[in-house]
């Protein structure tokens, strides 16, 4: 049983397809990188899979069942810039939002939820900031709060949209450690990623995306110069150093 199976997914804004006939299967208990240039549809892919935007065609199966958000097996970390950080709330409150799906309508988070949320903040090294107003957190700290909120969702599969953007080296290391920890617990983590240099170090499995899936599979076999050229159009200057990136020199 595969955690995520996508078949013939097409998404269009207005008439132009943003994703076309995307199909892939995700193996369980792995760290998976979704890689591609700007406008390749990486964020769109995540949102379409999670049912946040409508699909033109296609099917998403999670553990062999058609995906419904209510089942709460999937956790989500959106891009940090997608919300207004001046919202009147503190870090703990944001993490508690991860519990809302479990709590149910009309009820308030209880003591157990708060303990769990504090625990999640601790896992990302943010326990001291629990009562801090979120606008007073640094970019890296805000990203960690989002991660903690996803942890509080207590899901089996995690989708993360560029969690490494705009964070310092220490936070990046903390995040990748956390992702590895999730992997050890048998969870499946899909990460939209930009930095080609770290792909080999971070991910077991990659999906190279540019409107279509160019290639997918274990990083060693898939993250090759040829596939990168195909994904990025082969014209970009940095790809001249591509052989270093994929370690094929």
């Amino acid at each position, binding site marked *: 049983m595969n955690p995520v199976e996508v078949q013939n997914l097409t998404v269009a804004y207005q008439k132009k397809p943003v994703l076309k006939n995307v199909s892939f299967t995700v193996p369980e208990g792995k760290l998976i990188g979704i890689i591609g240039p700007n406008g390749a549809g990486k964020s769109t892919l995540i949102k379409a899979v999670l049912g946040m935007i409508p699909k033109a065609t296609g099917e998403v199966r999670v553990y062999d069942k058609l995906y419904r958000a209510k089942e709460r097996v999937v956790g989500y970390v959106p891009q940090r810039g997608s919300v207004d950080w001046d*919202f*009147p709330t503190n870090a703990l409150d944001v993490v508690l*939002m991860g519990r809302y799906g479990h709590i149910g309508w009309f009820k308030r988070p209880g003591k157990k939820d708060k303990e769990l949320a504090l625990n999640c903040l601790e896992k990302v090294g943010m326990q001291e900031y629990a009562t801090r107003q979120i606008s007073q957190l640094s970019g890296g700290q805000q990203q960690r709060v989002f991660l903690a909120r996803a942890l509080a969702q207590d899901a089996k599969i995690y989708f993360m949209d560029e969690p490494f953007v705009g964070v310092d080296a220490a936070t990046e290391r903390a995040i990748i450690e956390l992702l590895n920890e999730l992997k050890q617990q048998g969870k499946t983590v899909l990460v939209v990623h930009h930095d080609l240099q770290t792909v080999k170090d971070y991910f077991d499995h990659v999906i190279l995306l540019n409107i279509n899936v160019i290639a997918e599979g274990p990083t060693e076999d898939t993250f090759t110069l040829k596939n990168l050229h195909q994904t990025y159009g082969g014209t970009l200057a940095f790809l001249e150093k591509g052989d270093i990136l994929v370690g094929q020199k």
Partner: protein
Amino acid sequence: MDDVIKISLADANTQWVLLGTILLGISSGVLGSIALLRKQSLIGDAVAHASLPGICVTFLLLGEKSLFPLLIGAAISGLLATFCIQAISSYSIIKEDTAIGLVLSVFFGLGIVLLTKVSQSSVGNKSGLNDFIFGQAAALVGSDVKLMAGAAALLTVITWLLFKELKVLTFDPEFAKGLGLPTKLLNFVFLTLLVSAIVVGIQAVGVILMAAMLITPAISARYWTDSLARMIVLSGVFGAISGVFGTIFSTFGTGLATGPFIVVTATFIFFISLLFAPERGLLTKWVKRLRLNKRLQHELVLRKEGKSYQ
């Protein structure tokens, strides 16, 4: 002047009016703070203006001025306006702010045209219909206030029940969707609550100034707290205070419209908040910076002196 207040406050009708404006202050404060955070304050303005044609059409159909049906008419045309705004901004290249401007002016213009028609026609007792423009709380009678009280209480309770859902929907709508919340339904529910809060207030505050009752108490409350729950409560309190004092001030003269006085009171509270709120207030910030500068200068002087002794 004290005598005037005593006399007018002892009057049973004034008490009803006061209660009415307190309640509308609470409900518009509560819903206004969520609307503010959702960046929907201007939609509130459009809804308020757009309720006028609904009021006029209902009056023309019924031929009498009875509050409940008039408010239903107002709510229908207010909701219709929000749908027009959403349809225009999602099915054309026109952006939301332009769509709001368009819809607001078209509906309000239509309302004024209908109002002129009403005043020229011979239909029933039309006195007081003009009051919907600037608000005339004094025109409220006991049964009106009971209706407003019921509606305001219901709105506040629903908001309290849906607090958690509205919070995540406002902060991070995509995440809310990811949690499996029916975000479309919740958006519609909130919009209905907002329209109802506006409609409850138009009799006392008037369609032109109603938006101020959504925005001003909410933004004032934001200055005092960083917690959403506290902001909502405080906004309701500020709304209620504005209602009380606005009503009292407007009773000093005969025939004064209530709405402007309520809004002026709310604005006064806003200026106090803007200047004196802890952490965020301008004056507080200024004093803090002054103290910090002084301390830094002091330290600098000490350091220099220390060096010169060496």
